């Protein structure tokens, strides 16, 4: 009689204990969920140039800065593929390089107007003694694709200067350390 109950108990213990596995799975899930970036971003996925000497962003300093991000990216006006760009070449077709703020593409004239509006909305309260006028406190972050024409960055900077935005920042990727 005693032997029988011992056998029955042994049989019950055979089932695997999945609790530690579930724990690990939960931890993995939590890690990947927190690591995933699903927020709507100002910066679109473009190949920005690499620069070893670019300073890394300081989170504390960034909090107080009002930054307007302009992306310069390649896109044909009709959405048709561009064989030069798609094959890794340098495309210089007029109208193939777009200027974008928060997912909206602007043509040159509208960007000029938009910069003026943004600059006026963020005016420094004090008149600048050198410029002898109120300048904008806004930072303009230029995120240009590495194959974008320099002329576009020049033009954008010129428009920013005319609008009173003089704090320009140029985005670059810090390359991953070589193994």
């Amino acid at each position, binding site marked *: 009689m005693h032997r029988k109950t011992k056998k029955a108990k042994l049989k019950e213990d055979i089932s695997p204990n999945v609790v530690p596995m579930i724990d690990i799975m939960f931890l993995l899930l939590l890690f990947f969920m927190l690591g995933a970036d699903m927020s709507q971003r100002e910066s679109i996925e473009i190949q920005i140039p690499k620069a070893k000497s670019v300073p890394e*962003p300081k989170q504390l300093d960034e909090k107080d800065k009002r930054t307007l991000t302009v992306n310069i990216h390649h896109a044909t006006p009709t959405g048709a593929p561009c064989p030069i760009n798609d094959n890794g070449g340098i495309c210089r077709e007029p109208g193939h390089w777009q200027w974008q703020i928060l997912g909206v593409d602007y043509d040159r004239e509208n960007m000029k107007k938009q910069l003026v509006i943004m600059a006026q909305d963020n005016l420094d309260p004090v008149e600048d003694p050198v410029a002898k006028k109120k300048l904008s406190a806004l930072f303009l972050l230029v995120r240009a694709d590495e194959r974008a*024409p320099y002329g576009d960055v020049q033009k954008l900077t010129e428009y920013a200067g005319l609008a009173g935005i003089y704090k320009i920042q140029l985005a670059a990727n810090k390359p991953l350390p070589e193994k």
Partner: protein
Amino acid sequence: MVDVIFCLCVFFMCSFKFRETEGKFDSWLPKDKGEGGAPDPGPLQEMRVIMTWDQTTSKLTRQYLHRQVKDDAELQGIIKDAHDDFVAKNKPDIPLIIDGGANVPWKEVMTVVNIGKALEIKNLEFAMGTADAPAK
């Protein structure tokens, strides 16, 4: 439940991507130049890198003043020598001017900016409105 968690794990693992750290170079525009400002008398001495892009051959030409430069290492060496020379003459503020054509790829401009920053040159300037000339 375990199956669902496993599927979620696989989904997030597949969509996970390591991003490179994105930094930015600060580049303040001059307040006393341009529209309505005083005309720029121009620096008496300068370090100028001229870049032109030939679209037909997809070829970049770089010059330091009048000297043609082959690669980044040579350019860095030339700029370093010039900068050291100006520092020795007590003129560390002589600017490195990046004079690029409108069609020059942005990457090439940033390469020169990177060289300038690596050499700790404080004064970097961008020349505006130079036309591209065909590479020789």
